[in-house]
């Protein structure tokens, strides 16, 4: 679901880095890592039929 979302958050974060908004970009980076971890868990349990 919404597999484009982490790429979107990274893009927003990179634009913030370019504007030297460090804290805001770090927050976007943290959100991206969170999405990736959540995404892997969902994919692993529903699509790959494994329990992590």
């Amino acid at each position, binding site marked *: 679901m919404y597999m484009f979302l*982490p790429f979107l958050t990274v893009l927003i*974060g990179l634009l913030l880095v370019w504007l030297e908004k460090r804290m805001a970009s*770090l927050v976007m*980076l943290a959100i991206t890592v969170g999405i*990736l971890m959540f995404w*892997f868990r969902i*994919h692993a349990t529903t*699509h790959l039929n494994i329990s992590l």
Partner: protein
Amino acid sequence: MSRHSFPSLASLGNQLALASVVGVLTYAFVDQIYFGELPCPLCLMQRMGFVIIGFALVLNLRCGAHSAHYGWGIIGGLVGMMVSLRQVLLHVLPGDAGFGATFLELHFYTWAFVGYIGLLAGQAILLMLPNREVRSRSFIANALIIIFILLVVANLISTLLECGVGPCADDPVRYEGWIWLRTHFGF
């Protein structure tokens, strides 16, 4: 010429690591567009892991080195490594042909695992170096950052064209989002 005109070792290391991330993401696109292999959901997650490491390196190059940047890069790399290891384990049984094509006799997810180990080791070494003057505005650093941003944009568009706004197919063979656009808007 003053010694300050040369970038520091940590800055060079960050640029080198970013260049390797750019190389990995570029080759993934070559395989996708030239060889016509669409990335599976796990492959997209592995791309994401490399993108997170690249993001942390861009933060170092634009805002100066900070332990928080390396920390988030390492966490992203660990998650990506877990995803690639999961895919290796899915295809590890004897007789399993694996998913997708191979490169130098190894599948891409196996190379991704090797790449994550290299990048994580690289970040560990960068953390040991004196982190002065990592911030760089050189032509090479700016070019690498711009190429990296363009690759992220390309990944965003490619994922939307492949999966639309729904979940991606486990074994994708066509651009579902592109087909949806053509069906609904007639182009």
